[in-house]
């Protein structure tokens, strides 16, 4: 514990504490787990990016059906390859932590579900979402007719302004009626 603390530096640690919803232990644990992902050469460099494939070996993310989307949303890389720096990683953990607010959580949930990054959930996004949730192979998928019915049901219920898509505020409206969301939108290291 002592060595990791000295590696992170006291100022940096308190800065991270101010900027995230994480406690000191959580940040130190995150740092430890993150450095384990680095190769020997990378450990000496500051601000290394860890490629997505290596991030996805973490057991907390490995079997999550949205793992790729999560990496893409939290990555600040310009090439959009889903690689994460330590600070991106902290951002991710902060949004999924216990003390993050409903607003933060629903914002990131919306971005995770917005597969084409166009700012609304249209029927294409919803179809991908359903496939993620039920499994992607051919025998587990819903039929075309079922999918059409399902998506029209969702839009009927949540698309208040009837423009054929679910936007962020409509999404947050659905979420606000579901108190379980805060407890289930959670990843703890």
């Amino acid at each position, binding site marked *: 514990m002592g060595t990791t603390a000295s590696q992170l530096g006291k100022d940096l640690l308190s800065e991270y504490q101010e900027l995230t919803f994480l406690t*000191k232990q959580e940040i130190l644990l995150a740092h430890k787990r993150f450095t384990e992902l680095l190769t020997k050469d990378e450990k000496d460099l500051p601000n290394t990016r860890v490629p997505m494939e290596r991030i996805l070996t973490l057991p907390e993310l490995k079997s999550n059906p949205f793992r790729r989307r999560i990496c893409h949303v939290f990555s600040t890389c310009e090439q959009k390859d889903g690689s994460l720096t330590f600070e991106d990683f902290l951002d991710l953990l902060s949004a999924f932590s216990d003390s993050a607010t409903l607003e933060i959580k629903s914002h990131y949930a919306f971005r995770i579900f917005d597969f084409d990054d166009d700012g609304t959930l249209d029927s294409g996004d919803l179809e991908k979402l359903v496939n993620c949730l039920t499994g992607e192979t051919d025998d587990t998928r819903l039929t075309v007719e*079922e999918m059409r019915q*399902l998506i029209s049901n969702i839009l009927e219920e949540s698309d208040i302004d009837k*423009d054929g898509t679910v936007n962020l505020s409509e999404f947050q409206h659905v979420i606000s*009626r579901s108190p379980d969301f805060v407890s*289930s939108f*959670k*990843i703890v290291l």
Partner: protein
Amino acid sequence: EQDLVKEFVALSTRDRIRAIRDLPMSFEEKKHIRLLSQFFRRCGYSIRSARQTLELWQGIMKEIGGKFGTSVLSYFVFLKWLLMFNIFSFLVNFGFITIPLLVYDPLPNIPPNVSFRGLEILTGAGYFNHTVMYYGGYSNETLVGLVEYNMQLAYFFTIAVYMVLCGLALIFSMARSFKTNYVLAESTSNGAWQLLCSWDFSITNERAVRQRKSNLRVQLKESLSEKAQMELLTLSEKLKHFGVHLGSWLLSTGLAVGCGASIYYLCQYEQQEAETLLVPFVVSLMNLVVPLFYSLFYKFEHYSSQRTQIYALVVRNVLLRMSILGVLCFYWMNVVAKKFSCWESRVGQALYRLVIVDFLFLMLGSFFGEFLSNVIGTRLLPRLGVPEFDIARNVLELIYAQTLAWIGIYFSPLLPAIQIVKFFILFYLKKVSLTQNCQPPRRTGRAAQMHTTFIALLFFPFFVGALSMVAYTSWSLTPSEQCGPFRGLNNTFSVVGVWIDDLEEIPGSQWVVWIYQHVIRSELFYFLITLIILVIMYIFWQVTQGRKDLIGLLRQQIVNVSV
């Protein structure tokens, strides 16, 4: 200056720096304020980290959440909460009632012919009867040591304050979870909710993820086909459903009443030592078997939604347990209280036995209920499959166990100690049983909302029942004359009257006497208070109605504007 510091602690770093810069003060003062606010922020952080380090069973909780999801985890959170609650009750009772007595008189005065034989651990009688475990072991004297300590008053006020604190804690936690979970949630829409916010990100286990996906798929398909078939019920089918419902309600209520009556007759035969275990044994057996019988009903009944089905099951189980406990309390109040010389200790022993036997049955229940049905499901009849963890039944068992402790608090002040051990072992037992034998629940209802309803539905009858039982005992029953802190009094409450009479002679305490005579003993006061509360409730009810109308109007407006 303090207000300023308080304000700055809540701000983010950049805002704080700017706000401090804007202050019309000298450099020295600004520096001082900055240091102070930084110090408080640091303190806040360290308190948060310390709390996290002290958190019990963090790793186990994470493991359970990762394999079984949030809804099963909520059972374990509840169990942990109850454990903390009992530790608190134990500290209160031990600190204010037992320690003063032990300091004054450290050795229990046990008659020479009584020795510890081992069976006492089960029956709670014999040796234990002469220790501080029960009401009878406490004296009515004023202990004179460094200060004068009036045991009667201490006993009365500790129990009273403890009950009030329990009630307040329950009401506040219930109100909070109602506010966040119930008011906002609407039952009408389901599809959108199922898709947009049902995924449990905390699940990390590969198999659990696969299972959840297939469950979700089945649920989606079902909900689509249900929508198509909704209006196909004919009148005769409706009548048939109604008949089946009525029949099963009558049958379950009849069973509950029958169980209660048979317990009453069984109580008459309670005799010496080992025989006393018969009643708790039968009670626990009923609590184990009859719910299994109830859960068979759903094979014949058709409920429109799964939630109604669960609620019906819970209400039936509550009725059963309430009737059994009610009959037992009636027996204690009316028969035991007149028959035995030291009847409070007798009741304490009966409760002790109930607690212990209930614990044994909980262990057996998770062995037979979960382990055996796992073996049957995997080896003999694969059709049945691996059992699911039944959250409703398990939560109900916890609440029943806690109710026993509440009723017993007056008769056996150290019962929370037994309860602590019980819950501690139960946590590990359930964890092992869960990970070895069970699969995650197939249907994921709205866990938080259901949890709130459980707490309200179950705690209300159970806690209020226990409270009224203790209150009735201390207001209306004559305490036994040979033992206990209240010997020689007409009822327990008159200890306050005696105390007030003493106070009248001490100058400067006239206001206490005045309050006692004009507030606590006056009917007019309670009449006025009730009236005022009724008026306030009516006003609040009107305000909520108004808000409901307004929400409806606003919703209509959104649709109108966007179309």
